């Protein structure tokens, strides 16, 4: 019947669990103290008390508890915001330089995620072995060749499939970006935004239907490498007690920072970047300087596509990808871009993190009990408030996309 807890955890067989187990057992009493100090909320509707719980210091240290909660939510916001920022960054890049409203950008994010799926499928190309355990009909199970041939090393490569698939995703996504720009988008630079929306939306639908055709509609589970799965105690880092947070999410946040820095460094430090920035500031002038912007645009599109793709690759362990993933992020990413200010790269990043954090904080039970449903509308509410207070978003320039 009920197994003893330690044996059970071991049985799950994730290597990382074993060393942390003793540590965790040691923590248990401390946690218990914190638990009791939080008090047992039994009436889920006592809003006032909850308010007190977050905002007021109490002798028993409930501040520590609520601070923990707030820190955790900010962490949540950061990794969520990382994804928003990466998608919005590419969207803004395309918009700022090319002046194209790209409704297929969410689809690029989705394609990135499926690059990871494909890569891990390639790694696990398997021998089909007749599965004897199914007796009703002929069924086959599969054992990856990598494991068959290289044993543990092979298995390790399979385990690290998601981060490794970045290697596949960058060239593939850049190529997809090139193809999209050369084959379709470039014919739409001079067309109205409405037509750009229609054609890129059509493209997004086509792309997702193609993915559905090959991968089905069900979400596909992707796992983080074992060493980065599970959660880490980062309480020590920030000087608070007992904050454990999923490791992969921390990785994702750092990854997004790295990619954002790389994009900014590229734009600031290279001649190419200078031209692109000049193009974002004043496209006509750059054209007059006799610089071949066409070529540059293609490369910009490739970069934007790769950034969206990378965001998708690394997001797969957090969100099991399905063909619909892009559409789910589409509206959100546009809100992020607009809140940041059309055409402003720092604005897109800032808005991404800001909305991520606000969304997380609004999901706290304490806040939901004061304003029911706030977590469902917070993003849009913030968008409305920002746009009414700052007409062109947080960092937008005058005259861009206002007509």
């Amino acid at each position: 019947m009920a197994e003893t807890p330690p044996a059970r955890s071991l049985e799950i067989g994730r290597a990382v669990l074993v060393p942390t187990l003793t540590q965790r057992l040691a923590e248990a009493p401390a946690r218990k103290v914190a638990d009791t100090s939080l008090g047992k909320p039994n009436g889920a509707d006592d809003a006032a008390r909850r308010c007190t719980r977050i905002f007021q210091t109490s002798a028993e240290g409930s501040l520590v508890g609520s601070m923990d909660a707030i820190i955790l939510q900010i962490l949540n916001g950061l990794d969520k915001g990382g994804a928003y920022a990466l998608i919005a960054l590419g969207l803004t890049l395309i918009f700022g330089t090319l002046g194209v409203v790209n409704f297929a950008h969410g689809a690029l994010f989705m394609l990135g995620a499926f690059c990871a799926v494909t890569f891990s499928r390639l790694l696990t190309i398997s021998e089909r072995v007749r599965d004897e355990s199914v007796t009703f009909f002929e069924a086959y199970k599969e054992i990856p060749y990598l494991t068959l041939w290289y044993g543990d090393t092979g298995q390790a490569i399979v385990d690290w499939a998601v981060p490794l698939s970045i290697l596949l995703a960058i060239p593939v996504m850049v190529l997809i970006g090139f193809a999209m720009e050369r084959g379709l988008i470039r014919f739409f630079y001079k067309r109205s935004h409405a037509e750009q929306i229609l054609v890129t939306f059509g493209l997004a639908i086509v792309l997702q239907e193609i993915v559905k055709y090959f991968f089905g509609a069900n979400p596909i589970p992707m796992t983080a490498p074992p060493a980065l799965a599970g959660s880490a105690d980062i309480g020590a880092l920030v000087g608070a007690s007992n904050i454990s947070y999923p490791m992969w999410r921390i990785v994702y946040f750092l990854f997004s920072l790295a990619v954002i820095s790389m994009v900014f460094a590229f734009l600031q430090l290279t001649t190419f970047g200078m031209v692109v920035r000049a193009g974002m500031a004043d496209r006509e002038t750059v054209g007059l300087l006799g610089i071949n912007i066409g070529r540059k645009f293609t490369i910009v599109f490739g970069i934007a596509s790769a950034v969206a793709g990378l965001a998708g690759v690394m997001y797969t362990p957090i969100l099991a990808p399905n063909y619909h993933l892009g559409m789910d992020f589409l509206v959100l990413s546009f809100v992020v871009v607009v809140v940041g200010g059309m055409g402003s790269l720092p604005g897109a990043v800032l808005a991404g993190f800001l909305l991520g954090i606000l969304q997380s904080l609004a999901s706290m039970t304490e806040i939901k009990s004061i304003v029911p449903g706030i977590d469902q509308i917070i993003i849009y509410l913030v968008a409305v408030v920002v746009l009414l207070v700052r007409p062109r978003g947080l960092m937008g320039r005058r005259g861009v996309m206002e007509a």
Partner: protein
Amino acid sequence: MSESVMTRDKNMSKGMGRSPAESHAPKGEGLRGFMSSSRSDYLLLAIFALAILTMPIWLAPIGAGYPDILQKFAIFGIFALGFNILFGFSGYLSFGHAAFLGTGSYAAVWMFKLLSMNALIALIFAIAVAGVFALLIGYVSLRRSGIYFSILTLAFAQMSYNLAYSVLTPITNGETGLQVSGSDPRILDHMFGSPSGRGTPDFFGMELQGWPGFYFCAILLILAFFLTMRIRNSTFGLMLFAIKSNQNRMNYTGFATRPYLLAAFVISGMYAGLAGGLLAVTDPLAGADRMQWTASGEVVLMTILGGVGTLLGPVIGAAVMKYLEQIFSSFNEGFLHRAFDFLPSGLQDFMVTIVSPFVGEGWHLTLGLMFMLVVIFLPGGIMEGLRRVSGRFKGDRGAADTAAHAGH
């Protein structure tokens, strides 16, 4: 009322004589009918009405000759017509019009529940509520323009949708959708002793399901079309086109543009409310899905697909999209095998293999491809395609006409 207007119109046009602008109309059709004569307007209206009312006959061969889909054609036609008044005439792209569609539906169902199953009361209420809602959202959103305006409308609609789905369930009945039931008060019906047993909306005794429902929607579509035509030809419509063309000049010409835009926004919101109300009238259930951004996006796509700023385009775009959604999605492999039955067996299988990814569960693929093809090859939407085709048919005669105008 409308009759007196018509007579006045006729007299006027007689009095005015034929201006050069009239003969110019065929060429300028892509533009607007602002300068077109009332005679050609009424001809168009008559043809439109005839085509709509005979849809059950001429759409039957392609599998769309049944009441529900024709109701949808008419209802979404009204929705798109109204949307076009804002987007097509004034150039302001709202990404939140589904909010008014949903509001209209909820308002209509609440009228069914509280007052009476009479469609007229429900529709008036639906239009009014959607209009007020549009006034509020429009007043705030129109403080911004361009994509900032679009995102504001989107944000309001998404908030409405999310709340309707969850927190506002007491009003909207959430995911399941608001329905009528036998235990509703229906004060008026009970007062006049005619509680409708089945809970079917009626129009003074005529139950509005099936074919009567379609004709009811169709007549409202024709009225909506007529009204849109009038708006387009009015000074108000001219002002909207002028705003779309050059808002700066409008300001320096002494026009406060925002009242015009707000009026257009509210009018198109009321069209959406009427469409939403009709959805409830033909099928008394209002769900939150109607307010989702995808529904807002759908009407944008319908309008662009049909032809932005044209009169007929949005109606055609709406019908094409609903047709794909309803009919293409229903073509399964069995249907395809029957369709290609005339071919030899091997070829038949081949054709089925080729076609099947595009129909049935693949209908979205066709939709996406169609969007792309239309935008790439027909920048003005389906209307542009029709114009080109008719231009080719007319051939030399058309060219001669144009030359004649040029020499005028």
